[in-house]
């Protein structure tokens, strides 16, 4: 049970506590996602989380492929077939971009942690750097490999 809110006089009143909750429920919730103009800093921030967590799918496919290679030629043929199919290409190409995006955004986080680059102009420039850089690095990696 939540602690009761004291009144101005310092006396705890359950009724007033309920009223305060009702008033709170009527207010719109921050940050008003429906009417809030999407900002680059917010988009690049949430993309860091999305890419980082989505990478589990690529790593599961990679580990399964490795396990199959360790097991038998027959099992490897199955896993390798999946890993090099259009589905495998989709997962690994997506994961490659996710790795590079998360990589650059992570470096940006380390830079932010030093207390630098937090003004709007620099933060947005770094955001574009993460988006553009991740695409460039993805294409470069595909060309090299």
């Amino acid at each position, binding site marked *: 049970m939540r602690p009761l809110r004291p009144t101005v006089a310092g006396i705890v009143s359950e009724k007033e506590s309920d009223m305060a909750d009702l008033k709170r429920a009527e207010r719109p919730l921050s940050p008003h996602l429906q009417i809030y103009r999407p900002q680059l800093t917010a988009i690049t921030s949430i993309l860091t*989380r999305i890419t*980082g*967590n989505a*990478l*589990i799918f690529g*790593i*599961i496919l*990679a*580990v*399964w*492929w*490795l*396990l199959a*290679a*360790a*097991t038998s*030629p027959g099992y*490897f*043929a199955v896993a*390798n077939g999946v*890993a*090099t199919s259009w589905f495998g290409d989709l997962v*690994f190409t997506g994961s*490659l971009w996710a*790795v590079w995006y998360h*990589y650059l955004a*992570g*470096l940006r*986080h*380390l830079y932010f*942690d030093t207390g630098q680059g937090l003004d709007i102009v620099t933060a947005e420039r770094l955001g574009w750097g993460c988006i553009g850089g991740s695409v460039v690095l993805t294409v470069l*990696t595909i060309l*090299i*490999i």
Partner: protein
Amino acid sequence: MRYLTARKQAVGRGASHTGTAHHWSMTVSSVGLAFLVPLWVYIFGSALGQEHPVVLATFARPLPAILTALVLIVGMRHFAMGATVMIEDYTKGTTRKMLVIFVISLSTVVAATGLFALVRIAL
């Protein structure tokens, strides 16, 4: 005279109850991964799509084997802790606890499976 020092009074308080331990762990693992991942992506990407004997020969070599093991250990811990933060942001109560247990278990299973495969190939 106060017997509790200012530090003793502060430790364990705050929103996380563990100070900056989680953040610091993510910082350390992210720096580690920053060094490991580019080379691992190159090695894994080169091995992917090769014939079975070539794949076995690749991951039997010390550098690819050790690098893959490090990526699995450091990466899966980094994932588990990062996913935990996401779950804590969007869920609460029993759902939160179950999801946190799930992602920690999943990342441990993935790391253990990958390490087993490596041991079998490399040794």
